[in-house]
Each structure stands twice: as structure tokens, then as C-alpha cells.
């Protein structure tokens, strides 16, 4: 009874704390500007199934694709086991699903296989990050916190899987000994291999079994509450984020309605402009971005595929699309904290552009869409870069001087170079 009471308290605490933090993230995402992504639901579901569930964009890199698939499948499927553990914890039962008989054995066997695959994958991931030091995991934005974050996640998963398998090994040994309530249930293709390593005394085995059981389930609740602070939040947001993907061709950039309004009024004096809410053009701060860009910032798991394909970054420019996403998350989280501390209208005098992302970074972008193509969960760093450019040009006139010359040429000559429009057709007269 005491055990069940303690378990209930832990469950409630974990769920309440997690809800509070998730609500804060949802509130922060909603600080973004409106953007309608409610169209074409069929295509959106299909995109989510393909990209998030099907992991299709991961396949471009086969080794991490296979390893990540083990961890992903493990995460989804082992949750069935967590359901059993939760019921056992709350009602004081033991292996409550064991009535399923042969199917239960199949399930437990499958969980064990997945657990060992997850464990192996995480060990390889740790080696890739810390021993092989794969280039993609480094870069200016990969400071000590993001690198530690990745290691914490991997180590936690290794510990959880180890606890799960050790628990099964002890349980299996107790089952064979016919001890207490340890009914014969399940199949243990992995844990029976190392169950001989465990002591033979029933008391020790029960202690091990109980310790691992508690360690595993408390670990899962702790991990759940670590998610909102971590890049690992992608395991939840990958699904809505792909659902709300940009469905237009990648080359298409949105036309700003506020500008259309003014341009129409300029070209046609009889045009009565719609009354639109006054606002700035483009984005200076994270709250000037659309809610989708902010959702993407919380979805990013900092894998660096974007940056590794970015032509600017490849040639040593300051720009890194991953940094754009990480800066956006850091800034919107900071704004959220300011609201919690000082109220809704507090201004800390800082902004995403200049305090986090520099002019040099945004002007290095070739708008080539390599980053959006590379992202396994359809994050779009380019739209953030474009909003920052728009602010820089239309609100601050801070474009590089050569671009201002280009603007002048387009405006006066109808071409980005300084040629007379009267000479535009001269090419037809030349023979070669």
C-alpha cells in the first residue's frame, strides 16, 4: 500500500510538472505572429505520416538512419511496457498483462530485442559524438550545454534500458525459482543471457528486481520532465511540426499582404487600402516571427544536417542554419521567462536580430533551400533569415551597400545592373 501511495504521488508530480512546462512552451509558441496552415488537411496528414512516422528524410544518411530507427521504434513500442509498469505500480499487481499468454511472451521478447538495440545504438551515438567527434556535432553554436544535453539524453537512455533488462533478468530468475508472486510469464531472449551473472539468493534478486523497477519508472518520469528543457523535445513536436509543414514549392516565398496593400495604393490612386493592423515589416525579435517558426525552434534537435549542407557554412562563413534555430529558441524562452518574472509588457531591450543573430549571418545566406531539404522534420530556417532580412532592409535600411545599389538599379533601370532599359533588346542584334 505504501509503495502504491508513493508511486501515485510520483505520477501526479511528474504529470503536473510536465503539463506546467508544456503549457509555457505552448504559450511561448503562441507569442508568434498568426499564420494560416489549416488548409489541405489530407496532404498534411500524409506529410506527417511520411516524414515524422516514416522517417523518410532520415534515409539520406543510412548509418544514423538505422541507429535512430532502433531508438525511435524502441521509444514508441516500449511505451506499451511502460503502461503495464504504471498499472502495476498503481494497483500493486505484478505483470498485469501476463494473462495475454503467448502474445505476452512475444511482446516482452520484442521489448527485450528493442531494448538491446536502443542500448547499442545509444552507445554508438555516444562514440560518434565523443570519440569520433563527427564534424556535424561541432560548430560555434555547439557550446557546452548543447553538447552535454546530447550526452545526458544518450546516457539516460542507456541507463533506462540497462535497468529494464536487469529487472527482467532478475524477474526471470525468480520465476524459475518459483519465488513468491513471480508467476511464469514472458520470454526473455536477451536478459536470460546475462541472468547467470546475478546472485542466486531470492532476497538479493527481489531487491535487484525492485530497485530496477523503481529506477526505470522514476527515470522515465524524470526524463519526461527533462524534455521541455532539452533538444529532445523533438520526439513530441516532430509530429505537429511536420503536419504544419510549408506545402508550397520551396522556391516560393510568401508575398507580404501589408506591402501588397501599400503597393496597390501607390499604383492605383482609386484603390482603397484594407485597414490592416499596423506592425513592423519583417522580424526584429522572436515574437515578430510566425508561431510556426517558433514551433520549429522548439522542434529542432540540433542534429546539424542543415548546417552540414549549407553552402555558406561549408565555405567558412559565419552562418549556420542550426544556430538560427537554436538562437530563436533561446530568445523566445528568454522572452517567456521575462513574462513569468516581470509581466506581459516587460521589455528587456534585447532582440533576436543583433543580440543573438548578427547581420553578417543573415547576409551570408544564398536562399538555396539546402537546409530545409536536409531537415528530417521539415524545419525552415530560411523563413526566419528572410524575415530578419526584411526587417533589416525595410525598417532599418541596413542592407549591404552593394545591395542598395542593386535596389536602385532595379527601381530606375528595371535590371539589377546599371544598364539603360533602352538597351535591353540589343542582344538580338549581335550575331555572336
Amino acid at each position, binding site marked *: 500500500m505504501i509503495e502504491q501511495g508513493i508511486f501515485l504521488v510520483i505520477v501526479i508530480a511528474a504529470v503536473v510538472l510536465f503539463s506546467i512546462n508544456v503549457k509555457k512552451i505552448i504559450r511561448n509558441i503562441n507569442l508568434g505572429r498568426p499564420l494560416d496552415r489549416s488548409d489541405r488537411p489530407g496532404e498534411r496528414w500524409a506529410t506527417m505520416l511520411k516524414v515524422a512516422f516514416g522517417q523518410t528524410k532520415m534515409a539520406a544518411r543510412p548509418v544514423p538512419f538505422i541507429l535512430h530507427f532502433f531508438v525511435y521504434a524502441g521509444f514508441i513500442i516500449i511505451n506499451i511496457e511502460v503502461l503495464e509498469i504504471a498499472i502495476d505500480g498503481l494497483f500493486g499487481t505484478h505483470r498485469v498483462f501476463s494473462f495475454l499468454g503467448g502474445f505476452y511472451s512475444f511482446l516482452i521478447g520484442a521489448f527485450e530485442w528493442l531494448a538491446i538495440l536502443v542500448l547499442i545504438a545509444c552507445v554508438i551515438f555516444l562514440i560518434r559524438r565523443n570519440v569520433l567527434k563527427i564534424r556535424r556535432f561541432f560548430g560555434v553554436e555547439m557550446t557546452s550545454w548543447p553538447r552535454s544535453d546530447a550526452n545526458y539524453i544518450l546516457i539516460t537512455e542507456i541507463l533506462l534500458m540497462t535497468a529494464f533488462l536487469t529487472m527482467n533478468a532478475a524477474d526471470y530468475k525468480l520465476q524459475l525459482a518459483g519465488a513468491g508472486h513471480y508467476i511464469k510469464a514472458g520470454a526473455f531472449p536477451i536478459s536470460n543471457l546475462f541472468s547467470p551473472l546475478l546472485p542466486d539468493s531470492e532476497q538479493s534478486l527481489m531487491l535487484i528486481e525492485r530497485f530496477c523497477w523503481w529506477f526505470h519508472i522514476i527515470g522515465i518520469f524524470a526524463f519526461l520532465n527533462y524534455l521541455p528543457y532539452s533538444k529532445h523535445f523533438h520526439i513530441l513536436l516532430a509530429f505537429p511540426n511536420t503536419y504544419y509543414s510549408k506545402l508550397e514549392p520551396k522556391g516560393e516565398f510568401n508575398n507580404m499582404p501589408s506591402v501588397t496593400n501599400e503597393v496597390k495604393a501607390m499604383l492605383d490612386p482609386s484603390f482603397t487600402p484594407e485597414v490592416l493592423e499596423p506592425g513592423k515589416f519583417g522580424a526584429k525579435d522572436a515574437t515578430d516571427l510566425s508561431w510556426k517558426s517558433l514551433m520549429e525552434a522548439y522542434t529542432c534537435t540540433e542534429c546539424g544536417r542543415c548546417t552540414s549542407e549549407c553552402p555558406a557554412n561549408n*565555405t567558412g562563413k559565419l552562418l549556420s542554419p542550426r544556430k538560427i534555430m537554436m538562437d530563436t529558441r533561446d530568445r523566445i524562452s528568454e522572452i517567456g521567462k521575462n513574462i513569468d518574472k516581470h509581466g506581459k509588457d516587460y521589455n528587456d531591450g534585447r532582440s533576436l536580430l543583433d543580440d543573438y543573430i548578427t547581420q553578417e549571418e543573415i547576409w551570408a545566406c544564398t536562399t538555396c533551400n539546402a537546409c530545409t531539404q536536409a531537415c528530417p522534420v521539415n524545419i525552415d530556417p530560411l523563413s526566419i533569415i528572410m524575415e530578419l532580412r526584411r526587417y533589416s532592409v*525595410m525598417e532599418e535600411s541596413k542592407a549591404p551597400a552593394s545591395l542598395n545599389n542593386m535596389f536602385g538599379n532595379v*527601381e530606375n533601370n528595371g535590371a539589377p545592373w546599371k544598364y539603360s532599359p533602352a538597351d535591353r533588346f540589343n542582344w538580338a542584334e549581335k550575331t555572336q
Partner: protein
Amino acid sequence: MTELHVPTMAEMQANGESPEILFWVGCAGSFDERAQRITRDICKILQHVGIKYAVLGTEESCTGDPAKRAGNEFLFQMQAMTNIQVLDAYQIKKIVTGCPHCFNTIKNEYPGLGGHYEVIHHSQLIQQLIDDGKLKAEGGESFKGKKITFHDPCYLGRGNGVYEAPRRALEVLDADLVEMKRCRAHGMCCGAGGAQMFKEPEPGRKDVNIERVEQALETSPNVIAAGCPYCMTMLTDGVKNLDKEGSVAVLDIAEITARANGL
């Protein structure tokens, strides 16, 4: 070779005629000397297959693409709306462009501002002509056995998913098509997009076009094929910079097609 005559819309209208297709030349195609040769080759192909086409001539103006990518939405929309007025006054329905940037902008961004046209890139036109049997690779230079590698322009490939058309135009040559490590959806930009064409690159280790040409040279090609006047400039500069202009030619899909047909 017959003499090239390039009809303008004004001329056609004066004769009470209308073209099947408008050829949108673009600023680079109009003013850049290297790109002008591509423009003329596109006209030669159109004339060769007997398509009734016209250009806007001096009535054409920048689509606004470089302004938009640089963040100047005002200037972009001014250009777009003025161009739409001109195109609509001539009742244009179908457009072929010689530039992926013009192609992308007119196809994707003009409809929201009231300009609705069927837009294709010249590589798609060439593909259609080949598929319809109207265009072959005969009567001109032979590319047989030559190593050709195609550089995907961002706004044609990733931007609009057109990967096959330019390759189809090269396949008929019986040449040895080789792909770079980074091709198609993972192709690498030449470095000119996003209005970089009109500014100095930000400080870095290397210029993007040098990196890209090095990747192309790994395939030891005779020809680097392009489909965009900006890529043409960047790749040509890169090849020169690496002292390879003697052995590696940078040619547009349209130039290759025109040469293969002796136009």
C-alpha cells in the same frame, strides 16, 4: 544556319498576331554578354522547331527576384505588379524563361499578386520538344562519349522539383553523364542565389563557387552543364580561377542543344 529573327510582342500585336509562347529573357539574359549567347541559342531552338514565339524586348523589366530575396518586398511587388500589367495587356498565357529565378518568381509568386501564367524553364521546353520528336541531337557537334556533369540550379531543382528535364536534354546526346556527389535535392548552390550575385561574399574560408567547381572537377568532366545565367557566371569564374578553362567548358543546356543540332 538561317538568320535569327527575334519577334517582339509589340511587333506581333501590330500584325494582329499572337504567339504560342512568350520567351521571358530576364536581366542576365538581356545584358550579360555570356548569358546573351544562351538567350540567342534559346531563340535559335524556338525558330528551328517552328514555334511561334515572341519576346517583350524593351518592355521587359526585372521580375523583382533579387529585391525579394534581399528582403525588399516593396520593390519586388512594384516590379511584379508592373510586369503583370504588361503581360496581361498582351494576354500572355504561356511563358518560357531562360532563368530559374525568373521562372520561380513568375510561376510561384506572381499568382498571389494576380498574375496567372503557365511557366516553364527552357530545359522543360527542350525536354518536351525531344519527347515530341521535334528536336533531336543531329546535324551538329557530337557530344558522344564526352563527360558531362549537370549542376542543378537551386531554384529549378530544390526550389521547384525540376530534376529530370535538364538531364533528359543531355541524355539524347549519347554523352557520358556523370553526377557530382552533391546532386539533385542535395545539390550545392553556386553561391549566387539570394542576391549574393550583387554583393561581395561575407568573410569566409573560400568562395562558394570555388568549392562547387572543385566538386564538379572531381568527376573529371569535359563539360559542366548549367541551366541558369547566375550559375553560368559563378561556374565560369570558378573554372577560370582553378586554371581549367582550357580543358573544361561550362555550357548551358540550351547551348549544348543548339550546338548538337548545328544551330
